[in-house]
């Protein structure tokens, strides 16, 4: 399965809607979770005997708990408006990757067991029994949805296939059919505190190493504090930021921003992970348990603010759900948004002229920006609708001279997923990930050709890892993906920073650059 040879789709000159090719992705399934992955999450270790009945019961339970699910299952008119909106459909041409067809895998079972028409006239309304084959299709195709919500933008009723994928995954987990990648990771966070299973001492080591690196480079003692009681800010960031390229350059950027602004901050070894894979598997309980670690850390360390690093779905959970899951946050400083995104922090400081940049230090790059789906369509930044589009771009423009957006229908609310979100960032789904990246690769290719773009910036750990991996399939190189705060880190001039000959000139006019950006 994972080692199956597949062809990278060709980038098309004029993206047209592809013709259907039935079942070409039916073979794509992620590795199944073992009992040791499932049980810590409260799920049975393997397929339970009476799985059929348990599954139907769970479906009924979810419908009564989630209005969205109930309304979405009833309301689809099969207008077809969403059919060409999913990157997985565009990249694979498998009709079951059309959002409505993906929903229908669930809806046809819903109709059969829960609606009058489906009970008495199943053929007429396309209702079917829940059989092993159907379950198999569920496992394939609900793991070919990155829960990116693009379909929900274009549906006349806002039907969100992500909600249905989450429900389907929860039903599958409940009968013991879990996905290894997600469940293994969640069990690690429950046990250790982050996706990587990186224990406290290792974390301390890494952070100290970063302090040394930055001091060597700049001559400034920029701190990377861990578990510091009484710090103002608790930084919650995806664990990839602690070591992998280009993520770690982003972390260095946050540290420099905090340092320069004189904000005391700390990472927590108890909540050393921004990611919350509980969302991917649709499990409110797991999502809540993971979120509670953040509350516990904030209380224990006595911080005043919570700031999230660059991570897409984590920001969704933080912005949209954290207050619900782990609030109320009455013990934090109410003068700041709770929680706050690192881009909001940096943007605010730029506006207040608290940071100095030499934009020319990023002149070796021509940038474009990839809106991560969870930031774009499931959360916000700033105090106005659409701040999630404006703020990261303003941060880029304040730190770089060369920036070009990709074409209009592939950015902002219409952004295309990187192809690896929603719990699919695993090597056993490589074919899907490569094919799902197609629309984004086409849009990138276009700005590369038209504007000489050399790098794409993103604010999501999953996007960054995914692009680093799939770029080579499309003849880009893996280092063409960068963190937004990496750009900040490159261009920021710290107070007391060691002069480098080529910087002297510009350093006298950093203010000018800032004004231009504002």
């Amino acid at each position: 399965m994972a080692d199956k040879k597949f062809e990278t789709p060709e980038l098309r000159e004029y993206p047209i809607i592809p013709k259907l090719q039935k079942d070409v992705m039916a073979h794509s399934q992620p590795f199944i979770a073992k009992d040791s992955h499932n049980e810590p999450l409260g799920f049975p270790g393997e397929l339970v005997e009476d799985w059929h009945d348990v599954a139907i019961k769970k479906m009924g339970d979810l419908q009564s708990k989630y209005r969205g699910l109930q309304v979405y299952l009833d309301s689809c008119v099969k207008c077809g408006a969403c059919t060409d909106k999913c990157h997985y459909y565009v990249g694979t041409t498998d009709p079951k990757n059309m959002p409505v067809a993906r929903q229908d895998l669930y809806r046809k079972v819903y109709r059969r067991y829960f609606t009058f028409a489906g009970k008495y006239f199943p053929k007429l309304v396309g209702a079917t029994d829940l059989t092993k084959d159907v379950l198999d299709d569920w496992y394939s195709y609900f793991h070919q949805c990155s829960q990116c919500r693009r379909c929900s933008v274009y549906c006349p009723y806002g039907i969100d296939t992500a909600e249905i994928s989450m429900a389907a995954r929860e039903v599958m987990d409940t009968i013991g059919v879990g996905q290894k990648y997600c469940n293994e990771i969640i069990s690690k966070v429950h046990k250790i505190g982050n996706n990587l299973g990186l224990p406290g001492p290792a974390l301390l080591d890494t952070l100290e190493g970063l302090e040394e690196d930055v001091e060597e480079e700049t001559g400034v003692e920029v701190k990377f504090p861990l578990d510091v009681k009484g710090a103002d800010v608790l930084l919650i960031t995806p664990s990839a930021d602690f070591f992998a390229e280009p993520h770690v350059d982003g972390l260095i950027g946050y540290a420099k921003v905090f340092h320069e602004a004189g904000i005391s901050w700390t990472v927590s070894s108890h909540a050393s992970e921004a990611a919350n894979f509980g969302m991917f598997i649709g499990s409110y309980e797991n999502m809540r348990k993971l979120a509670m670690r953040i509350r516990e850390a904030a209380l224990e360390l006595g911080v005043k603010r919570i700031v999230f690093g660059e991570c897409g779905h984590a920001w969704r959970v933080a912005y949209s759900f954290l207050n619900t899951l782990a609030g109320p946050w009455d013990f934090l400083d109410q003068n700041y948004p709770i929680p706050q995104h690192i881009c909001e922090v940096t943007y605010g400081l730029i506006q207040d002229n608290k940071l100095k940049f030499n934009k020319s230090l990023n002149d070796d790059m021509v940038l474009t920006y990839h809106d991560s789906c969870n930031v774009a369509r499931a959360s916000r930044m700033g105090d106005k609708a659409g701040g999630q589009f404006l703020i990261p771009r303003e941060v880029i423009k304040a730190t770089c001279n060369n920036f070009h957006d990709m074409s209009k229908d592939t950015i902002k609310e219409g952004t295309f997923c990187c192809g690896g979100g929603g719990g699919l960032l695993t090597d056993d789904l490589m074919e899907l990930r490569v094919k799902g990246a197609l629309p984004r690769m086409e849009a990138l290719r276009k700005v590369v050709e038209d504007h000489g773009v050399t790098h794409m910036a993103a604010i999501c750990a999953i996007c960054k890892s995914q692009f680093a991996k799939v770029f080579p399939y499309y003849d880009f190189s893996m280092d063409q993906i960068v963190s937004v705060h990496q750009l900040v880190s490159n261009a920021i001039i710290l107070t007391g920073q060691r002069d480098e000959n080529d910087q002297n000139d510009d350093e006298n006019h950093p203010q000018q650059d800032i004004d231009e950006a504002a």
Partner: protein
Amino acid sequence: MQISILSFTVAAIFYLAFFVFAYGLISKILQYKNTPAPLKIPTMPAPTTQAGVVFRMSKEVVFFESLFKSSKVTWLFGWLFHFGLFLDMLRHLRYFIDPIWFWVLIIQPFGKYGSILMFIGLAGLLTRRIIVDRVRYISSPSDHLMLVLLLSITTTGMAMSFYLGADVISVKSFFIGLMTFNIQNIPSDPVLVSHLLMVASLMIIFPYSKLLHAPGLFFSPSRNQVDNAREKRHVAKWAEDLEKN
């Protein structure tokens, strides 16, 4: 006055249809209303105030804004059909109120053109459903039949108002009679009777089919929620219970 068997039958069917429609729709609406939405999931960017939500929703209901973004062809036919349906339903009010309100009189001729819009819209939607491979793939027999049923209602209606004519006075007294539990005769006109019986079946089907999209839209959390998760804590009843342990 002698009431014909036909009139009794049609009357009985309409009472049944009305009951099923009202009961079915109200239970669905109550179900939607009583099912919590535990998480904030508006499709962003979303309005940050309740007034903003009303504005967003109005644009969806009146103009099909999201559909306009996604597919101009579907939008055109879909909107023509619904707008025509809306005009035509207003026009039909004249069968149920007496004396007829002034504005209902004014719109009579427009209502008539509404049926033409409905016809064009429905024919376009049905054609699209048949010729576009993606839409054909996602269609069940019921999706085609729904359009056929609506087309048949539209064409029988148009046949009467444009060519054959109907005894509208009797039709009106039949419906006023139904509403006052005083059954009157209905003209034994096959086109009229089939038009009415198809409308009755549409009412019966409504709460058990995808026609639930009409109430559904108003309850869709991705469209009706305010974007204020950070400012206002939002917790469902069942989720509150989790916090106790």
